[in-house]
């Protein structure tokens, strides 16, 4: 029934492998998928994993650093697999304990002849699994014997009376304009619960409720009456009357603006903003509590004396660690149990939730850490809390480190060589900062010498096109064509409002290709994740234009919503696209990072949910406020 059973070390070397009935298909690929998806993405809380037609179950042995994996066809539901894994784990560990404890990997040459023992265990497990006959409960054990007879009898007369009383309390409702909604449900449940017929207390209560409602509506009626005479029309500045039309009109080119190649010159560019030019081509890392990180990393400072001091500090730390490590070997070590880990993990989970990590993500992370630490040997000098904290630290850094190469400039150069523009699409819910961060990224790309075309595919929101036009004008002032070899550094492709976004995007990409622009930034309208027609249109835009990078823009202030947004966006992109391999979100832009002090949990929630890296971090509303994520700094702030 089983396809394979494999025992391998965490370092990757296979100790023993069993393939059913001599099937020599290599199971490296599904096992590698298991490792990469589950263990390296900290989803190790559950012990099941499905890969294609194969269902895999695994168990970690943290004492000897081994992994036990069993695989079988998904369509079979084998009940004995849990027991089999546990039995094999225990038996293998006991049998080869001596050889595994020998730290110098001498077991590499050893041939673990475990086949016979395994078949015995497997047949035992199969037999026991099939023996699982459930016996019927006796009447004494059931819950029915504990109830009274009166509570179980159904009185048809009583039911009719209850229904009448319900109708009576419901009918006053439509007459009154204002209903204190809290009181109505409080009255209703009382009636069916009572076993007796309507008693005077209930009648009195109903009358009170009616009286209260009447009084409330009367009071409100009194309040509204005098207001009407005092109301006057509110006057809005630039409120859109015909008088204001002239000052509001931004569509044409007025006499004030200076014409340069069809772009109007922006006179409001300050000197401070001009200083940004040619200094912002490099995106810096986030700076969070650098002085604390300096203590841990020795080579940050350039001053030689300080460096040597740091070295001394570190070396004394190492030497003191060396002295105590002698003693650590003498004193015995204890194995961690799940009960011992639970209180520490609970406090860690609450701490994470307090730092704005989504609740179920924090839960899953703690489960995964518990799985990794159960059974591990720790010296008595290190406390459980410190071990858990260190393991959690490693897991969090693991989640935030990108799983693939993130180098946008390199990819743009690649497509430049191929003669096509590099297309980046920004999507997200309303109000997260898509247009603002699009402008920042445009500035960064222009600083690095690329020519950018902005596609205004937000055809819904009022002022969206004008906002992008303003950005374009300002960027054009900061980066005149002389900096880009006589041609425009930035241009805006727009077709006004109300048009189809996917069509505009396609036209923009074609125009960019003809006019040799290097990058196209597509701005889409913000949309809620459960708005089906809008998600459909987004999926259509992405499928039709197949951008090189689909970036999800999310704000750092979001809490548990982050998980919901990302899951639904990914699902919509997969469901509503007709392509064979639907695109999903490739990266995340984390915005409004300056508004959170150290409650940086949203970064964890987002990267955990998608598995995609955070490509940019927005830290303000001006052009240079763009950073790259520094995983260690964020985790440090998270666990402080």
């Amino acid at each position, binding site marked *: 029934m089983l396809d394979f059973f494999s025992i*391998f*070390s*965490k*370092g*990757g*070397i*296979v100790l023993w*492998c069993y393939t059913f009935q001599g099937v020599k298909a290599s199971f*490296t690929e599904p*096992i*590698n998928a298991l*490792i*990469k998806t589950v*263990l*390296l993405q900290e989803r190790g809380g559950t012990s099941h994993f499905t890969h294609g037609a194969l269902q895999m179950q695994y168990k970690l042995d943290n004492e000897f*650093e081994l*992994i036990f994996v069993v695989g079988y066809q998904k369509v079979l539901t084998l009940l004995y697999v849990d027991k089999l894994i546990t039995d094999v784990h225990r038996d293998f560990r006991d049998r080869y304990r001596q050889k595994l404890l020998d730290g*110098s*990997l001498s077991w*590499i*040459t050893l041939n673990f002849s475990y086949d016979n023992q395994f078949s015995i265990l497997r047949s035992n497990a199969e037999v026991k699994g099939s023996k699982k006959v459930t016996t019927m409960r006796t009447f004494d054990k059931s819950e029915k014997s504990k109830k009274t007879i009166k509570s179980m009898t159904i009185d048809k007369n009583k039911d009719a009376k209850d229904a009448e009383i319900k109708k009576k309390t419901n009918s006053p409702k439509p007459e009154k304009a204002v209903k204190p909604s809290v009181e109505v449900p409080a009255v209703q449940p009382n009636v069916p619960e009572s076993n007796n017929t309507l008693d005077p207390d209930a009648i009195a209560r109903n009358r009170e409720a009616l009286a209260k409602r009447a009084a409330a509506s009367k009071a409100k009626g009194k309040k509204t009456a005098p207001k009407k005479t005092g109301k006057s029309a509110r006057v809005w500045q630039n409120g859109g009357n015909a008088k204001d039309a002239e000052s509001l009109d931004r569509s044409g080119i007025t006499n004030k603006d200076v014409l340069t190649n069809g772009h109007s010159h922006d006179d409001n560019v300050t000197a401070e903003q001009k200083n940004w030019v*040619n*200094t*912002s*081509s*490099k*995106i*810096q*890392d986030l*700076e969070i509590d650098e002085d604390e990180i300096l203590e841990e990393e020795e*080579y940050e400072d*350039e001053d030689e004396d300080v460096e040597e001091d740091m*070295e*001394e500090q570190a*070396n*004394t730390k*190492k*030497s003191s660690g060396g002295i105590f490590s002698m003693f650590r070997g003498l004193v015995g070590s204890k194995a961690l149990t799940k009960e011992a880990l639970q209180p520490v993990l609970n406090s860690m989970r609450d701490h994470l939730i307090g730092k704005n990590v989504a609740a179920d993500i924090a839960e899953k992370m703690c489960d995964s850490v518990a799985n990794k630490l159960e059974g591990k040997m720790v010296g008595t000098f290190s406390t459980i809390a410190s071990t858990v904290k260190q393991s959690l630290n*490693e897991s969090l*850094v*693991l*989640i935030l*480190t*990108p*799983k*693939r*190469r993130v*180098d946008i*400039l*390199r990819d743009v*150069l690649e497509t430049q060589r191929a003669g096509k523009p590099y297309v980046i699409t920004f999507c997200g819910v309303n109000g997260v900062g898509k247009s603002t961060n699009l402008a920042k990224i445009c500035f960064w790309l222009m*600083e*690095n010498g690329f020519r950018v075309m902005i596609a205004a595919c937000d055809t819904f929101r009022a002022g969206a096109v004008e906002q992008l036009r303003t950005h374009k004008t300002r960027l054009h002032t900061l980066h005149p064509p002389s900096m880009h070899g006589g041609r425009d550094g930035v241009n805006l492709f727009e077709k006004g409002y109300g048009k189809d976004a996917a069509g505009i995007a396609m036209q923009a990409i074609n125009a960019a290709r003809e006019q040799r622009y290097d990058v196209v930034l597509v701005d889409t309208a913000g949309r809620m994740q459960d708005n089906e027609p809008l998600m459909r249109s987004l999926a259509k835009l992405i499928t039709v234009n197949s951008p090189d990078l689909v970036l999800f823009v999310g704000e750092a202030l979001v809490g548990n919503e982050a998980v919901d947004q990302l899951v639904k966006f990914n699902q919509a992109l997969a469901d509503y696209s007709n392509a064979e391999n639907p695109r999903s979100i490739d990266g995340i832009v984390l915005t409004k990072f300056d508004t959170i002090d150290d409650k940086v949990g949203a970064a964890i929630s987002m990267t955990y949910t998608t598995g995609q890296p955070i490509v940019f971090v927005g830290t303000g509303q001006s052009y*240079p406020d763009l950073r790259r994520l520094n995983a260690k700094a964020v985790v440090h702030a998270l666990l402080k």
Partner: protein
Amino acid sequence: MYNLRSCCEVKMEIQSSLTAYKSLLESYGISGNLLGVFISLLVVVVTAVLWKLFFGGKAQRTGVLLAGLSDSGKTILFTQLISGVVKETHTSLKENEAQYIVEPNQGKTLTVVDLPGHEAIRLQYLEKYKDNARGIVFVVDSGSFQKNVKDVAEFLFQIFTDKQLNKIAPSICIACNKQDLFNSKTKTVILNQLEKELNTVRKTQSAALSSTSGGGEDSVFLGRKEEDFQFSHLSKFKIEFLECNAKPGLEESANVNLEELKMWISSLI
């Protein structure tokens, strides 16, 4: 003369600081035996620090790190070097560490560490083991090199620009593994491709070097600024390219071939 003078000056400084320290302790009321204990502890700590400083040189480092992308053959190479046996392997989650006896010079051992190659954890493990690095073997999968050239270049770039590695300056060898595959590239082809790729990568990774950088880390610029990147420009690291094959293939010609690699390792001593 200059050395003697500086030596004497240092000695006098230490003496004067010791007497100052002694008087400070006495002013706090600590005298007699306790003073002796304090001074001896101080001497022990200072000696330990000086020992580490002077003898923390290259002679102490005994590590040979196997680094590279995921699925390039590091763990199989590791098992071949240590035991001569080929075992089936999966993606490593942790490092494998063992002692390797360098054959011609009997009795001298080096610690071979096989670092995991997965992007999310490889830098963590490199951080852990780079202090002890005497040599780094960067394993490249010659068969799928064309597909992965950008990732290989990025990892190499990270190794070359790491500040601590620049300080330690270990010898680096780029082992073109999986030579038994029919579409494997030779070491010269890999060398040329990597030079071209690193030439581009050094520009994109440290994007603002011609203009003033706005703080953050000052990364090391690879090679010479005006010329195209070449491995010979990296004077600090002794870089060598070699070919190897860790897995026995089906044909006769595709046998395990680790001779060049073993010679390079023995040259480390």
